[in-house]
C-alpha cells in the first residue's frame, strides 16, 4: 500500500506585517533587501515582537481543520546554520514538550476519505537565496531578506493519502479553504510550498523537500511512487532518505546533505513569553470565522434553488462566492449564479485578469434583472459582460453604445415577421403543417434583428401570424 504524508507551508499573505516586526508581509513588490529592519535582519540586540493577528489567523486555520487548539502556545528555536536564516535559528513551534503549537490533531474530509492533520504550527519564513554563476566553481549565492520573517503556517498531515489524486483533491480543498478564511492567497508565487513523504508496501519512508508549488507537489509524489515501484519490482531496497525536487527536470534527486542527521537543539524561545489564547479569543474567532465552503453551497441550493453543480463551483472559489453574495437579490439569484458560472469564469480565469476586471456587483445584478425581464438576451448579456469587465461602464450605457437592447416593440417586430413570412413561403407552409419546424423562421427573424428580438414575444407574434 502507498502511504503519502504532507507538510504544507502556507504564508499568511493577508497579514499587514511580518511575524515579528512591522515590515510588510507582502514582500513581493519591494526592491531586493528593502523590506527589512533590524529585527527581521536579526541584528544584535533586537528581539522578536509577536504579531497577534498572525496568531489569530493561524488559529483560525486550526479551527477550520478541526484541530484541537491549546489555551497557551509557545515558540521554540530550531538551531541550524543556513545563509537564508538571519539569526541562524528559526523561531517555530513544537509539540514534543506538550501541545503548545497553534493546532493539535485535526482532520478534514476529502471526498469520502478522512485525512488526519497531525499539527499546525506558526513559524518565520527564511530569506530567499538567489544563485548566480553557471558552474559550481564560480557560483555565488546572494540573499534577499525581504521574505525573512514572514509568517508561515505549517500544516502537517498523517500519511493518509493513498495516491496522487487524493493529494491533488486535498490541495484543492485546502487552497479554497485558506482563501475562504481570508488568511492567504494561494495563487501568489511562493505562497504555498510543500514537503511530502512517500512509502510503498510498508517500506522505508522517503522525504521529498523543496517543492515550490501545489502543481509540482502532485507531480513529485507521482514521480516518487513510480521510482519506488520500479525499484521494488526489481527487488532493490528503497533507502530511507531525503530527496529534493528538481523543479526543472521534474524528478526527485537524492540529497547528499546530511540534513536528516541535523540536530536542531530545540529549546524554548525565551524572548516570547507563553501566549494565552483564552476562551474569549476562541469565541470571537468562531464568530468571525467566515462561512465554510460546504455551508455556503448548501445555502445556495436550499435558499435559491441553484443546481448542486453550479452551487459547488460558485462556493468553492471565494472570489466568485463573494461576488455572488454581494450582487444577487432573492429574485435574481439563480440568474446571477448562471452568469457567473457560465460567462464570467471564462473572462476572469487568472489572477491578473481578476485584478484588472472593472466589474462591480451592481453590474451583475442589473444584467440578471434585464435577462429575467426579457429586455436582454443571454447572448447580448454575454457581450455586455465582456465590455463591463473591460471598461467598467454602466450597463445602460453599454447597451445603447453597442445597440444590444432587445427589439420588443410589437409593431417593429411585426413588420420584420411579415417580411420573413413573405420571403420564406416554403418554410411557412411547412411550419403550418408541422409546428416543430417553426424554429427555422424564428432563426431568420433573429438574423434580421442581430439576435435582439425578444424571443418570447417573437414566438407569440409569429404563431399568431401563421394562424
Amino acid at each position, binding site marked *: 500500500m502507498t502511504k503519502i504524508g504532507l507538510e504544507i507551508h502556507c504564508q499568511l499573505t493577508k497579514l499587514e506585517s511580518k511575524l515579528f516586526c512591522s515590515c510588510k508581509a507582502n514582500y513581493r513588490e519591494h526592491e531586493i533587501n528593502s523590506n527589512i529592519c*533590524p529585527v527581521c*535582519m*536579526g*541584528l*544584535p*540586540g*533586537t*528581539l*522578536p*515582537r*509577536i504579531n497577534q493577528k498572525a496568531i489569530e489567523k493561524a488559529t483560525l486555520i486550526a479551527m477550520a481543520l478541526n484541530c484541537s487548539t491549546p489555551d497557551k502556545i509557545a515558540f521554540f*528555536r530550531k*538551531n541550524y*546554520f*543556513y*545563509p537564508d536564516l*538571519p*539569526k*541562524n*535559528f528559526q523561531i517555530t513551534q513544537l509539540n514534543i514538550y506538550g501541545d503548545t503549537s497553534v493546532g493539535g490533531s485535526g482532520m478534514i474530509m476529502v471526498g469520502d476519505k478522512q485525512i488526519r492533520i497531525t499539527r499546525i504550527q506558526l513559524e518565520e519564513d527564511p530569506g530567499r537565496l538567489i544563485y548566480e554563476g553557471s558552474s559550481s566553481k564560480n557560483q555565488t*549565492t546572494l*540573499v534577499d531578506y525581504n521574505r525573512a520573517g514572514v509568517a508561515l503556517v505549517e500544516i502537517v498531515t498523517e500519511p493518509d493519502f493513498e495516491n496522487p489524486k487524493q493529494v491533488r483533491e486535498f490541495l484543492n480543498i485546502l487552497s479554497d479553504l485558506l482563501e475562504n478564511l481570508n488568511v492567504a492567497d494561494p495563487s501568489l508565487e511562493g505562497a504555498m510550498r510543500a514537503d511530502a513523504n512517500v512509502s510503498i508496501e510498508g517500506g522505508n519512508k522517503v522525504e521529498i523537500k523543496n517543492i515550490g508549488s501545489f502543481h509540482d507537489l502532485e507531480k513529485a509524489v507521482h514521480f516518487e511512487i513510480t521510482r519506488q515501484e520500479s525499484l521494488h519490482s526489481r527487488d532493490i531496497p528503497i533507502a530511507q532518505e531525503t530527496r529534493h525536487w528538481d523543479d526543472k527536470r521534474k524528478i526527485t534527486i537524492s540529497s547528499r546533505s546530511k540534513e536528516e542527521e541535523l*540536530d536542531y*537543539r*530545540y*529549546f*524554548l524561545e*525565551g*524572548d*516570547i*513569553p507563553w501566549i494565552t489564547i483564552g476562551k474569549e479569543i476562541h469565541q470571537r474567532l468562531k464568530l468571525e470565522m467566515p462561512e465554510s465552503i460546504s455551508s455556503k453551497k448548501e445555502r445556495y441550493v436550499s435558499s435559491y434553488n441553484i443546481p448542486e453543480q453550479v452551487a459547488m463551483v460558485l462556493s468553492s472559489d471565494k472570489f466568485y462566492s463573494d461576488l455572488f453574495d454581494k450582487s444577487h437579490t432573492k429574485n435574481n439569484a439563480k440568474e446571477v449564479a448562471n452568469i457567473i458560472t457560465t460567462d464570467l469564469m471564462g473572462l476572469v480565469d487568472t489572477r491578473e485578469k481578476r485584478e484588472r476586471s472593472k466589474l462591480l456587483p451592481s453590474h451583475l445584478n442589473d444584467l440578471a434583472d434585464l435577462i429575467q425581464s426579457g429586455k436582454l438576451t443571454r447572448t447580448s448579456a454575454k457581450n455586455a459582460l465582456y465590455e463591463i469587465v473591460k471598461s467598467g461602464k454602466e450597463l445602460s450605457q453599454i447597451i445603447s453604445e453597442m445597440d444590444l437592447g432587445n427589439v420588443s416593440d410589437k409593431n417593429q417586430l411585426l413588420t420584420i415577421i411579415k417580411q420573413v413570412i413573405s420571403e420564406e413561403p416554403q418554410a411557412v407552409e411547412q411550419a403550418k403543417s408541422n409546428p416543430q419546424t417553426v424554429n427555422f423562421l424564428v432563426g431568420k427573424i433573429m438574423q434580421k434583428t442581430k439576435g435582439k428580438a425578444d424571443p418570447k414575444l417573437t414566438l407569440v407574434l409569429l404563431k399568431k401570424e401563421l394562424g
Partner: protein
Amino acid sequence: MNLKISALEYIDQVKNGQISAEEFVSATIDRIKKIDGKLHAFLQINPDAVEQARKVDKKIKLGEKVGACFGMPISIKDNICIKNSKTTCASKMLENFIAPYDATVISKLKQQDAIFVGKVNMDEFAMGLTTEFSAYGPSKNPWNTDYVPGGSSGGSAVSVSAFECVASLGSDTGGSVRNPASFCSTVGYKPTYGLISRYGLISYANSIEQIGPMTRTVKDTAFLLNILCGLDTNDNTTIDNGNQDYLSEIDSGIEGKKIGIIQEMIGEGIDSQVLSATKDAISKLEGLGAICDNVSIDMVKYSVASYYTITATEAGSNLARYDNIRYGYEFPVEGYEFNSYISKVRSKFGPEVIRRMILGGFVPSAGHAGKYFLKALKVKSKLTKEVNQAFKKYDFLIAPTVPVLPFKIGEKINDPVALFLVDINTVMSNLSGTPSISIPYAISNGLPIGMQLLAKHRDDKSLLQAARALETTVQLPEVPI
C-alpha cells in the same frame, strides 16, 4: 570641579546653577583621559559629549524643558546599542558593528538628557566575571590596579568607582552587575526579570539577564530605575510595574522586616573577611529593627551547574548569528563555501566564548539534553520554588555578593572551574527572575566587599528601601585613584 558627587547631587547642583553640565562633563572627559590609561574602563569615548552638555545648558538657560538627568555623564556597557556608534561586546567578531538603532534604555536616557560619555569594557559577550576576557584587554580595579574589577560589567563598575562618570548601565546574566559592583565598591542592581527592556541589549542568555544600573548610591539607582523601567512594545518579556516611584519613600527603613541569611552562601569556601563583614551587616540590620534568621535554600548547591548549562545553551543559539555575512569585521566572502566561511570567520571569538559555545552545542543536543539541559531547567524551576517559599517567610534575604575578595589579574583566568564558583551567590536571582542589589559594605586590606540583599519577584521598591537602610550604616574610605 568636584566630580565625586552622586547623581542626585549632580542634578541639584546643575539646577541651582552651582555647576554647568558642560563644565562637569568636560571635567569628566579630562579625568577619563588622565586616568583611564591605568584603568582601561573605556573602549570608546564619545567625542560629542561636551557639545551635547552645552546644548543641555542652553536649554536650561532658555528655560526650556530639560530632562531629569540634566546632562549627567553616564557610561554604557558595550553590549548596549547606541545608534550610529560601535557596539562591540568587547569582541573582535563585532569590531566594526555600528548599531543602526538605539536600545530602549538609551532612548529613555536620551529623552531625559543624559549624556553618554563612552562605551565601557566587559568580558567578551558578557561571558566572564573579571573583565579579563575582553578582546581589547582587561580593565583594572581602581582600588588596586593589580586586581580584577570583577565582571562582566567591569568597565561600568570601574568608571563609576573611579569617578569617570556619575553612573553606568551594565547587564547582569549571573551576577555581571553585582559582582563588579562588589569588587569596585559601587551599587549594582539586578531588577526583577522584565522590569527593564532588553531591546538593544545584545543577548548572552536572554531568558535570565537584565540591564542594571550601577551607581554611587542606592538613591541614584532608584532614580535611574524610575527612568529605565516600564512596558516596552519592542520587548515582549517586559512587565507592567504600574508606574511605581522607586525614589519616593526610599527612607522608609526596615523596622520589623524579616531577613533570611542564606546558609548555603556563607558556608564552605567563604573568605573569613567576607564572612565577618556579613555578620557585621546582619547585626547592623538588627540594630535597625530587622529580624534576622537563618534560611536554607537547598538547590543553591546545583545552581551554578544549572546556570552554566542554561547560559551555554542560550549563548550557543544567540551567538549563532555572528557569521560575519551581514555585519562584523572585514573578511571577504569570495572563494568560500558557506560552512567553511563561517568556521573560518568565527575563529575570531575569544577562548571563553568558544568554550561556552562548545558546551552550548553539547548540553542541549539530542543525545544529551535529558542528562544536562533538561535537568538544568528542572533545577531552575525547583530553585525558583524554594526561593518563592523562602519569601513567604522573609521579606528579604541576605548574603555577601561574592564569597571571596577581589583577586589578582591572571590569578584565576586559567582555572574556569574556580571562576565559576565565584558566581555561587549571584546566579540564584537570575535563575529565579527575582531582584537583588549589591551595595558597598566594607574594605578589607584595601579591597572592597559588597553586601547583597534579595527580594521577591516585583518587590524592587522595598528592596531598594532595605538597601538604603543598610547603606546608611556604612562609612567607607575614598577610592585611592
